[in-house]
């Protein structure tokens, strides 16, 4: 499509707001520039879908994720924003509301809103619990309505405090898409009862996401870290300058066999990934002038705390290809015993790939990195991914029971410093039994899960007093058998699966990074 036709289409799209149109127009403008200079080999791998720049743009002028030090911001005020140091709770909320609009990211709105209990607790003296609740609730509604994007992320915990508890209460009440929420859990600090509240919230609204605080904290220095966007762990007062991801499925397809994969193809394509990372980071740090911004000048972020994220996806397919497994079909779903996620040898091969990646990441220097290195990331996928599974996940629809699922993947978690986006699907019977969610979460974290994310879904497979059945079977059965209740069942099933289909009101740009009609 001619450049101008594309612009016309964006401008006249009936489904986009003016703001979204501006974003897509900016992306189109950036995409009309020549791509950064990269080698022919990198370009070929990019064109072939082996490495992917996540559509961050041809000339990156803002980092992918930015994690400002909001504590410092409130304490010192901002010359640039003409704000004096904050004195009380209202001023704190007001100042945050202002600065959020000046924190860029790949989605053009902030992906990190801060560790809100650390940030706000110093300003709660003398305010009663009910006032905190009312003020935070308004704040929560404001966030959802003005910065609507499920990648905008708040952190709370691991300590037990009034801000943490109030946010959990409000989040379960409002059930908004935004902001996303991570609850930090530390077995030495967090009382079980608080984790139980968080687990009950997951049953209510699939939020929060639970982070294994000690593991994350150990991965970073004393200045701290934050969880942003869709479960990326990054240095506080820094962030990710870029995210380039490697499609392990494609890498496996290029390999002659398992040994060739480890000896040749994987190192080769990692090398090309690094080339792309280098050229993108160099442009951002050296040409774009981003690091002259007030965020740097006022000490809210530091250039040295930015690192590239080295993302991977398609682990499941890579393992199955390398093992010579036939493609998973409807029929093989029932007994997928030789497949990734179900079979010891397959799972072990997966762990070996993660370990090999970890070794490469830890031994490969980058010009602009955290202590001179990139951070390995198990990437959650974007809307353009077809026939390839996000990160190291087990393909959707073929997951084993939740415990076997956790046991199959736990080993991977140690390697993915900047986050591992895994999602457990738990059938809806857990809704009336949040204690089960709590126990599952604790079990996963104790086994080394870096993060625990659960979707309470209405699986096709449901348990009826003593045996498993498939909803779809029942529907067919009911149609052929007695006619009564058919409508009731249909309505019920629709209501049950409704939450799965629930789409964000605003298309999230990280998931749909380009304009496609």
């Amino acid at each position, binding site marked *: 499509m001619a450049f101008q036709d594309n612009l016309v289409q964006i401008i006249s799209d009936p489904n986009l707001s003016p703001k979204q149109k501006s974003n897509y127009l900016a992306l189109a403008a950036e995409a009309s520039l020549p791509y950064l200079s990269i080698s022919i080999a990198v370009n070929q791998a990019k064109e072939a879908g082996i490495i992917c720049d996540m559509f961050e743009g041809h000339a990156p002028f803002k980092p992918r994720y930015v994690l400002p030090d909001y504590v410092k911001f409130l304490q010192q005020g901002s010359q640039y924003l003409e704000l004096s140091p904050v004195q009380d709770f209202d001023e704190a909320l007001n100042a945050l509301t202002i600065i959020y609009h000046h924190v860029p990211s790949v989605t053009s709105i902030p992906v990190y809103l801060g560790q809100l209990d650390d940030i706000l607790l110093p300003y709660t003296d003398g305010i009663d619990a009910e006032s905190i609740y009312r003020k935070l609730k308004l704040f929560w509604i404001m966030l959802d309505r003005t910065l609507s994007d499920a990648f905008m992320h708040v952190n709370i915990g691991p300590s037990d405090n009034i801000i943490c508890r109030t946010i959990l209460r409000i989040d379960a009440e409002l059930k908004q898409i935004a902001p996303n929420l991570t609850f930090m859990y530390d077995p030495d600090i967090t009382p079980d009862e608080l984790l139980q509240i968080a687990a009950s919230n997951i049953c209510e609204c699939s939020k929060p996401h639970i982070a294994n605080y000690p593991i994350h904290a150990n991965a970073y220095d004393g200045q701290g870290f934050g969880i942003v966007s869709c479960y990326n762990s990054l240095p506080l007062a820094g962030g990710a300058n870029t995210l380039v991801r490697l499609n392990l499925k494609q890498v496996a397809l290029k390999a002659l066999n398992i040994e060739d994969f480890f000896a040749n193809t994987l190192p080769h394509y990692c090398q090309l990934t690094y080339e792309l990372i280098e050229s993108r980071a160099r442009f951002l740090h050296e040409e774009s002038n981003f690091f002259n911004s007030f965020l740097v000048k006022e000490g809210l972020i530091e250039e040295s705390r930015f690192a590239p994220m080295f993302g991977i996806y398609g682990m499941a397919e890579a393992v199955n290809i390398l093992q010579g497994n036939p493609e998973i079909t409807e029929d093989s779903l*029932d*007994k997928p*015993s030789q497949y990734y996620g179900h079979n010891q040898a397959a799972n072990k091969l997966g762990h070996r790939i993660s370990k090999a990646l970890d070794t490469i990441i830890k031994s490969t220097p980058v010009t602009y990195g955290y202590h001179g290195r990139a951070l390995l990331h198990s990437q959650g996928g974007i809307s353009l991914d077809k026939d390839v599974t996000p990160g190291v996940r087990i393909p959707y629809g073929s997951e084993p*029971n*939740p*415990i*076997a699922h*956790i*046991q199959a993947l736990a080993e991977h978690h140690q390697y993915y410093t900047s986050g591992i986006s895994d999602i457990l699907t*738990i*059938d*809806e*019977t*857990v*809704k*009336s*039994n949040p*204690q*089960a*969610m*709590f*126990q*599952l979460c*604790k*079990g*996963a974290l*104790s*086994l080394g899960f870096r993060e625990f994310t659960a979707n309470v879904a209405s699986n096709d497979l*449901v*348990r*009826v*007093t*003593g*045996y*498993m*059945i498939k*909803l779809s*079977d*029942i529907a067919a*059965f*009911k149609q052929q*058998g*007695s006619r*009564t*209740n058919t409508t*009731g*069942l249909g309505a*019920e099933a629709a209501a*049950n699966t409704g939450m799965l289909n629930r789409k964000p009101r605003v298309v999230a740009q990280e998931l749909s990074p380009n304009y496609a009609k």
Partner: protein
Amino acid sequence: MQNKLATVSQIQPFSCVDGPGSRLVIFLQGCNYNCKNCHNPHTIDLCDHCGDCVPTCPTQALTLVTTEGTSRIDWDSEPCTQCDTCLSVCPKQSSPKTRQYSVEDLLVLIHNQRHFINGITISGGEASLQLAFIIELFKAIKSNKELSHLTCMLDTNGSLSINGWHKLLPYLDSAMIDLKAWQEETHRYITGRDHHRVFQSLRLLAEHGKLYEVRLLHIPGISDFDSEIEAVATYLKQLPNSVRVKLNAFQHHGVTGEARQWGTCSEEQMKLLASALSQRGVGNLVLPSIYL
């Protein structure tokens, strides 16, 4: 220690509906009731290893192994596609797809899952038919340092004798009991058995603080909880407040024979029964989350 074996029809490693928290559930084969409405009739009878099902299996998952004159059916789960042909041809309406487990086997399994579960539940079939095995298993769990925090529960039709309960009680945390009907005749019509044992069991467990849940299966026009609502409510109210009263809605799936002609229980009918009970002061009601 004796080396007892249990005949297991299924093991579910993570269940949210068989007691508090997350539970590993062991379903034992065999039942002493013959409920017309059974949705799992092939768990009622034990396979007698006649071998009739062997040639009908399309994937050769079944073989008849004869050692020293006795034949045993051997089921290989690997090739089995769960087509259930074997279930439909069995003259006893039984299943060859069961497995023998020793207490040790189960302990290994439970040990592997211990971080994820709050406890285990033995269900059926009718679990209490293999009481000696259950006692041995619960005893072993309670005396194992790494497993002793797990709660041990039993899901039963309540037909166990007082004597049997007394043997089990020291190792049992709590139980769930099905009450299939209020009137003796109704109970006998549905299950083929009388129900004085069920009421005895309910009373005994309530006295010992070990009754977790009583379950009523509502079959409109067949079970009599609605027509006997006053008596049912009065009875339920004298149970400890902590006891959950779980209402189940009768459906046709898996049901064979005359019960297929009975009407299923709709959400509206369920809600009617529930509100009749709560109007009469019955608390702690749990309704089905789906009707299928």
